[in-house]
């Protein structure tokens, strides 16, 4: 499993995860009202938190993605991305199980109120979760890395 530590491999993973997150947050940043509606459709969050979530979430995605790509605070941003992906996977799975007629609010927002391919999104998020997990465990704190060398 040595290639997992290869710095180019890790860079590619960071670009994929970061790029996907930037792409995903773009639509939400431009239309928070629609994003709030997409969250509402999940019937997952209490009403009072929906708009606050819709206001902060896209920026959390953007900031973590940019930091991950630039290599700033790699551990912090990858851990936050892991948490976000777990939240996404759990909410998508419960929506799928309940058969809600929702848009997943994952990428483009033009499909709000329409069934989107939830299963595909779940699989996608699981892949991203795996990739981010590798980035997290391979981004050791600098001090520890020096000791190992």
């Amino acid at each position, binding site marked *: 499993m040595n290639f997992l530590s290869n710095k180019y491999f890790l860079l590619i993973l960071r670009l994929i995860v970061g790029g996907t997150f930037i792409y995903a947050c773009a639509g939400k*940043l*431009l*239309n*928070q*009202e629609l994003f*709030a*509606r997409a969250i*509402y*459709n999940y019937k997952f969050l209490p*009403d*009072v938190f*929906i*708009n*606050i979530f*819709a*206001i*902060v*979430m*896209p*920026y*959390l995605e*953007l*900031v*973590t993605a940019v*930091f991950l790509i630039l290599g700033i*605070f790699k*551990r*912090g*941003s990858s*851990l*936050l991305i892991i948490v976000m992906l777990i939240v996404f996977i759990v909410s998508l799975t419960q929506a799928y199980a*309940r*058969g*809600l*007629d*929702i848009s997943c609010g994952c990428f483009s927002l033009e*499909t709000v*109120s*329409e069934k989107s391919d939830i299963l595909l999104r779940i699989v996608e998020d699981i892949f991203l979760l795996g990739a981010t997990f590798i980035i997290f465990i391979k981004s050791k*704190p600098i*001090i*520890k890395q020096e000791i190992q060398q």
Partner: protein
Amino acid sequence: MKRSLLKEIIIIVSVSVFLGFTMNIISPNKIPLIQDYSSRHQIDSASSDKQKPVRQFTKEGFVKPVNVKIQDVKKMFDEGAVFIDGRPPEEFATGHIKGAINIPYKEFKDKTVEQKLEILKAYDKEKPIVSYCGGTECEISIDNAYEMAKAGYNELKIYLGGYKEWNELGYPTEK
């Protein structure tokens, strides 16, 4: 080591919260911090009273669509009200309320007011129009009704039970 990770997380979250709230304040599309979503599914109790319910207006100035009970929906059906099904044509084709017209929300919402009025021109602005979709978990009935109300239709009714409930009750349907 753990402390530095916690520090990184605190910094990232703070930056995001700051950006989120700041951008929301300066954005032309800003949203309120707390919004009441509960009224979307409240049935208007006055709708089944004998006297005509007083019209309510939204902040934007159009007449607020009313959520109505199944008994009232059936009554309006018997009286020949227009029924509008907001689902995609494929779903509409698998079965719908008898005589309903298919205006898919997905396409309708992006049309200009003129185009919307053109689509709706056959219907009276002051007579009940019932908007429905698949069933209770389907939000299209509400959204579609609001789009039509915004275009100037004043008697929009929302039937939340949708095709699912209608069909289960054995009321007239067609394919």
